[in-house]
């Protein structure tokens, strides 16, 4: 593996140097065409990144669309053929698909909503300087750097029905009289996943909004104070409009990200009990790599991507945001 990476780096560097040399030579020989080669310069800088991404996303995507239309099972390599939208038909005939779509919606709306509210509250609370704020932030923002996998383990262990600390605490507080099987009960298992996701996601929103809040000029608030603006009115009339671009972009990106990520589900519940905490992407993962039915999984993926694309366009239209390239 080492040599392969080294080779790639060498290749990029070599291409870059050769390109730069050629440009320079061209400039020296045709000084009048200097304008032209200056125009090529940026492409030289972007090329390694762009070509790499185009190859790594473009080719697989086309491939996925093709696979979604085929009977493509990895265990039957000799038996690959176009099956007349068979994968899509199988997908919609699946009797659990309704439940899984519902789970996905609950999971995304609840966890993004809670993350957003808590993150915003935290940012507002941290806005004014106080002693130890730096240290406080260093601790509280820590979950941002944590791996979903380990966070999943933490929550799975804490909500363990037998030895879990959550049950123990709730019983000691007298809130419940019997241990709850959090991960084995439909509804509750999804709730645990959502809680873990919120715990992980609050720092992202808090960091983004804290920075955005600090860019609001102080004198706007002073003017509002003189005019006798209340705290709530002040928030909706000044704060929110000022940070609106950040709010829109974070909500959009986070929704997509949360929707697509499922490591927490895999670690905490494995989709159980009986698909009650399965979301569309985690279902896709299960179908792709337990049965190696890549055709079916790709079909699900294509639908997901279309849904996300429509969501993004719709969201940006509704919020009248027109700086899509600038995230």
């Amino acid at each position, binding site marked *: 593996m080492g040599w392969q990476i080294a080779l790639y780096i060498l290749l990029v560097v070599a291409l870059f140097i050769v390109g730069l040399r050629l440009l320079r030579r061209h400039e020296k020989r045709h000084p009048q065409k200097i304008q032209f080669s200056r125009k090529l310069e940026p492409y030289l800088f972007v090329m390694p990144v762009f070509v790499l991404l185009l190859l790594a996303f473009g080719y697989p995507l086309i491939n996925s669309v093709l696979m979604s239309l085929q009977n493509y099972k990895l265990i039957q390599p000799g038996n690959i053929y176009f099956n007349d939208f068979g994968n899509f038909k199988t997908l919609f005939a699946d009797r659990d698909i309704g439940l899984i779509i519902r789970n996905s919606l609950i999971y995304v709306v609840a966890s993004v909503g809670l993350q957003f509210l808590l993150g915003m509250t935290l940012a507002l609370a941290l806005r004014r300087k106080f002693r130890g704020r730096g240290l406080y932030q260093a601790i509280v923002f820590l979950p941002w750097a944590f791996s979903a996998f380990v966070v999943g383990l*933490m929550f799975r262990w804490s909500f363990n029905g037998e*030895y879990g*600390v959550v049950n123990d605490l709730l019983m000691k507080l007298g809130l419940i009289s019997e241990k709850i099987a959090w991960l084995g009960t439909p509804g509750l298992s999804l709730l645990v996943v959502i809680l873990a996701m919120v715990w992980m996601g609050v720092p992202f929103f808090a960091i983004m909004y804290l920075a955005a809040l600090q860019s609001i000029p102080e004198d706007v608030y002073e003017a509002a104070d003189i005019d006798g603006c209340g705290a709530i009115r002040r928030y909706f009339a000044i704060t929110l409009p000022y940070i609106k671009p950040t709010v829109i972009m974070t909500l959009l990106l986070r929704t997509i990200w949360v929707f697509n990520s499922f490591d927490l589900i895999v670690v905490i519940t494995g989709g159980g009990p009986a698909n009650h905490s399965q979301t569309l992407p985690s279902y896709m993962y299960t179908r792709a790599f337990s049965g190696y039915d890549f055709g079916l999984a790709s079909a699900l993926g294509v639908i997901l991507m279309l849904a996300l694309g429509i969501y993004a366009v719709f969201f940006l239209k509704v919020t009248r945001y027109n700086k899509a390239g600038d995230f």
Partner: protein
Amino acid sequence: MTDRTKRGLSTTGRVLLLAVYLLLVVLPIYWMMATSFKTHTEIIDAQNLTYFPQEVTGENYDQLFSMYNYGSMLKNSVIISSSTAIVITLLSILGGYAFARYEFRGKGSMLLFFLLTQMIPGILVIIPLYVIFANAGLINTRFSLFVYYLVVNLPFCVITMRSFFERIPYTLEEAAFVDGCTRWQGLFRIILPIMFPGIVAVFVFAFIGSWNELIAGTIFISTSDMWTVPVGLKSLIGKYDVKWGVLMAGGVLALLPTAVMFAVMQRFVVEGLTAGAVKG
């Protein structure tokens, strides 16, 4: 209510809120650490849950290394994450510089393409890549993960790097050009030294992104000598028997590097995270 009591009330509310939130963040982490230092018998004593290890032991950590070969997982993770992060940082410097300092045809659509890559479900890229890697004999190599982590983390890192470049006034470079610097020298001698925080931030993003990843790891890697930390730890979750003490010890050690990185570089990282967003 006078203004003074109002303000006092809101301060109390704020302190209370911050305290409760701190508790919510710290408790799960504490619980993981406490469990990792308990003996197996203490962990599975469901009648008497102890909130502090009765007898602090390192046996879980010992087992992790002696029985489950944690050292090899760490090695794989370190190699993959650091090589990914280095290459991403280099490529981001090039790409970010071009996006920040040049106007060129297709710039807008390239940026849009970067945004679109963020919308693609990872699995949709993983499946075809799996087929490609399998045909090329690259399944179960560190290289396969390196490629995947490289491409999924690259778009965000390039955009972040671009915002760092944009914050540095162009006049600085112009002055250097007037003094006879080439563009290349300007980049290396003038801009990059000032950009240090940005470079560190991008490196940390890329490192954390690959260090924490589980799904692609479980798919591309099949033998235990190639396991990364998350993949190896996941294998410890058996169907009926879960070694919680060992698992928690593994979790603590898995979090340590990224937590330390984040704590030390927090200022840079937060700057980097917000660099793109605040402009709007």
